[in-house]
């Protein structure tokens, strides 16, 4: 009998680490690849070089979870293969192309767990491409991994739990936080009271952070609209409207984000079916309760499958691992799977509440000024997008990409794709679900032309 190839796990964040641990415990030897230099993913991202900061300083209330995740993964060493700083850029028929240290390694896998996480979601606003404007996640990474702030007087703008979290982390790090501009009206936040029963710790933590921000004199503004960033060579000020009142604040850094969007390109390349998810306003890969995608042997876990946060990612990673074991006919723990299922559905109900408290300002799309850049890779403005829709009578997102170049640049639509979809939906008077989704293409991120092929070719099965 020939041995089966290794299972492959993409992502060493909370979801990927728990999936790996589950497989290792069952005696399998997975290969884990991650672009980052160390495990932890986004939420438990490790610093690039050691500094004096304690893990509480880095991860706040989540410090113990972070430490546990890091040390649990370290303890698996020797029982799995782990390639850090490795970009998986192409998938096909049980083979993956992975760029690592300037060479390409093609490996055969048997069982694929995608735990690819998320990136920030944004809608373009005037001035968003000025130096000094970062996404909320980017602002946080600068602080967590590099130990530096994006400015000395910083404004945080947007929606979603990260808005207050990152503002609070900056405050704790001693940065002057000038204001938090929330795009939702204050009464949307009252929804959070409904969440108290489900996830009291999370809600209380959020309330504490908000209270601390206020106590330390940070202005919190709700129902912010018509935002524009001003500056010559870099950010100098931010302007917005609240009701009928226009306001302006000077600052030299802005963290901006409208919650997160799942990183689904690899699921697409793996051939998974997608369905439209109203809550996330996105096309997401279908999966069953165990995380099984529509393609046999492909499993989806964590924020890459649907936005649900770090705790859910850990649970979903473990759950996907159990599903893989079950599908291979190996011993697995069905009771544990049930416990996880119940926990995940509770978090799912909580997500509904969060969504109501941090609604996505979809109506902004129609107000994006024509001269505002939407795609910064290919330098395409909202007016050019609208012009292409009109001239070619476009009704579908991939056709829009073909004629306008939107989503064709380095980021392949990861940054501009959701905005382009919203604009197209607005221009054609259709629902966001009706305009379709960008088909993914390899390489999922840029790779060097001079990337050389590893000599070994397909790695022998374990």
């Amino acid at each position, binding site marked *: 009998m020939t041995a089966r190839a290794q299972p492959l796990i993409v992502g060493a964040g909370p979801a990927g680490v728990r999936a790996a641990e589950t497989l290792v415990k069952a005696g399998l030897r997975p290969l884990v690849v991650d672009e980052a230099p160390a495990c932890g993913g986004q939420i438990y991202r490790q610093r690039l070089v050691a500094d004096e900061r304690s893990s509480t300083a880095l991860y706040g209330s989540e410090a113990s979870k972070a430490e546990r995740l890091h040390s649990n993964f370290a303890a698996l060493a020797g029982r799995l293969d782990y390639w850090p700083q490795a970009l998986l850029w*192409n998938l096909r028929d049980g083979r993956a192309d992975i760029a690592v240290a300037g060479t390409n390694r*093609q490996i055969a896998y048997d069982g694929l767990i995608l735990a690819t996480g998320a990136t920030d979601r944004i809608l373009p606003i005037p001035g968003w491409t000025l130096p000094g404007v970062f996404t909320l996640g980017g602002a946080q990474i600068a602080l967590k991994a590099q130990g530096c702030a994006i400015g000395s007087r910083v404004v945080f703008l947007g929606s979603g739990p990260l808005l207050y979290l990152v503002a609070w982390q900056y405050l704790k790090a001693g940065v002057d936080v000038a204001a938090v501009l929330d795009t939702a009206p204050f009464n949307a936040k009252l929804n959070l009271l409904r969440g108290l029963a489900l996830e009291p710790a999370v809600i209380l933590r959020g309330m504490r952070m908000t209270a601390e921000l206020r106590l330390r004199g940070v202005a919190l503004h709700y129902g912010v609209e018509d935002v524009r960033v001003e500056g010559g060579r870099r950010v100098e000020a931010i302007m917005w409207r609240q009701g009928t009142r226009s306001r302006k604040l000077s600052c030299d850094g802005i963290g901006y984000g409208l919650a997160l969007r799942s990183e689904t390109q690899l699921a697409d390349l793996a051939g998974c079916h997608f369905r439209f998810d109203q809550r996330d306003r996105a096309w997401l890969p279908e999966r069953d309760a165990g995380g099984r995608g529509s393609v046999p042997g492909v499993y989806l876990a964590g924020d890459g499958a649907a936005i649900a946060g770090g705790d859910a990612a850990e649970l979903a990673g473990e759950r996907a691992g159990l599903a893989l074991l079950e599908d291979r006919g190996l011993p697995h723990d069905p009771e544990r799977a049930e416990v996880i299922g119940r926990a995940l559905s509770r978090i799912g109900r909580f997500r509904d509440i969060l969504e109501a408290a941090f609604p996505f300002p979809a109506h902004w799309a129609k107000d994006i000024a024509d001269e505002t850049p939407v795609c910064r890779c290919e330098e395409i403005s909202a007016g050019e997008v609208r012009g292409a829709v009109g*001239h070619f009578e476009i009704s579908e997102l991939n*056709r829009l990409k073909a004629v306008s170049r939107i989503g064709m*640049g380095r980021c392949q639509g990861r940054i501009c794709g959701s905005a382009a979809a919203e604009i197209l939906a607005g221009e054609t008077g259709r629902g966001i679900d009706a305009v379709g989704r960008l088909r993914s293409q390899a390489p999922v991120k840029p*790779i*060097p032309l001079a*990337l050389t092929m590893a000599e070994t070719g397909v790695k022998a099965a374990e």
Partner: protein
Amino acid sequence: MSRRLDVDVAIIGGGLVGSSAALALRGMGMSVALLDKGFCGAQASGVNYGGVRRQGRPLEQLPLSQRAHGIWPRLQALIGIDGEFLRSGHLKLARDEADMAALEAYAEAVAGQGLGLELIGHNGLRERFGWVGGDVFGASFCAGDGHANPRLVSTGFASAARRAGVHVLENTPVKGVTRNGAGFALEAGDDLSLSARFVINSAGAWADSFAAAFGESVPLARIYPSMVVTEPLEAIMTANIGMEGGGIYARQVERGNCVVGGERALPLDDPDFSRPRGEGALAIMNRAAELFPGLRHAHAIRFWSGTEGAIPDRNPVIGPSLTTPGLIHAFGFTGAGFQIAPGVGEVLAELVRDGRSTTPIDAFTIGRFAPVPISTRTDRGSGAGEASEPQHPRETRS
């Protein structure tokens, strides 16, 4: 409830061939329906490499190719956009003496056809095209050739046709065509019944089934050329590059991205779709980095491929059906239909109006194939097994 439509000409397939024919026919005052199973210009015509070249074509294609050559600079007037058409010249490289001899033989064979080919030796190449590195022996330059943006051109022809009054029916697959009385009856989409005096079969890689339905079998295979595009770079390439015998082709668009091709993709389970092979794309990337020093540190940002119909003798089928009056075929462009398509559109319109074309097309008759037994049709090769795409065929040596 079913919809009915009565037109002079029904065109199956809204690629560049079908949509340019639609526009030309409309210009002659005919009523036209242009039907596509998906979006017009979303197949080969909209996803190709964008080479607008006459150089290297089989001799029989040159009159038609010259006719198209006259149309390309008039796109703005014709379809309202210039399609990013750029007369950059097409530089065809020779790796060795044998390649160079082939280029010389070709230049001699086409002398007098108006291509204006210029043979360039190693030193001349270094002087004029210093951005070409690698071990290149010499080249042949066709100054009048160039490149364009296929995504815009093909979509642009279909939109112009629509503005001119063509019934452009997208997401409307033609499911059946039958001859009835003086014309044809077509069933399309969920509920469309169409009657037409003429039918043009320009269904690209899918056209053989329509030919077969009228008793004409064609050895049409599928090929999937595979493309790589780099991030935007400063201006490096001043010409569209090809290579004698195939291997690599490359161009740089105004925005700065370099498009590089030369390998074949693999079909997915649904053979209408394909995806570049990782190792194929890497091979072409490495080759580009070696041949163009300016690309050595560049990144590839995207791959793509497309589905194209190919015929063994590398010439398309263009002309009237030999079994069915009123039916006209135009397909099988074998990796080189982009440049020629606007000319083909005009020829098809002439065939409908006058029953003959002012440009010679006899070489492209469907009658040139020996009947193919139906039973062997299913295992015809996809062509994808071939490692490299012979866009610039060695046959030009003869």
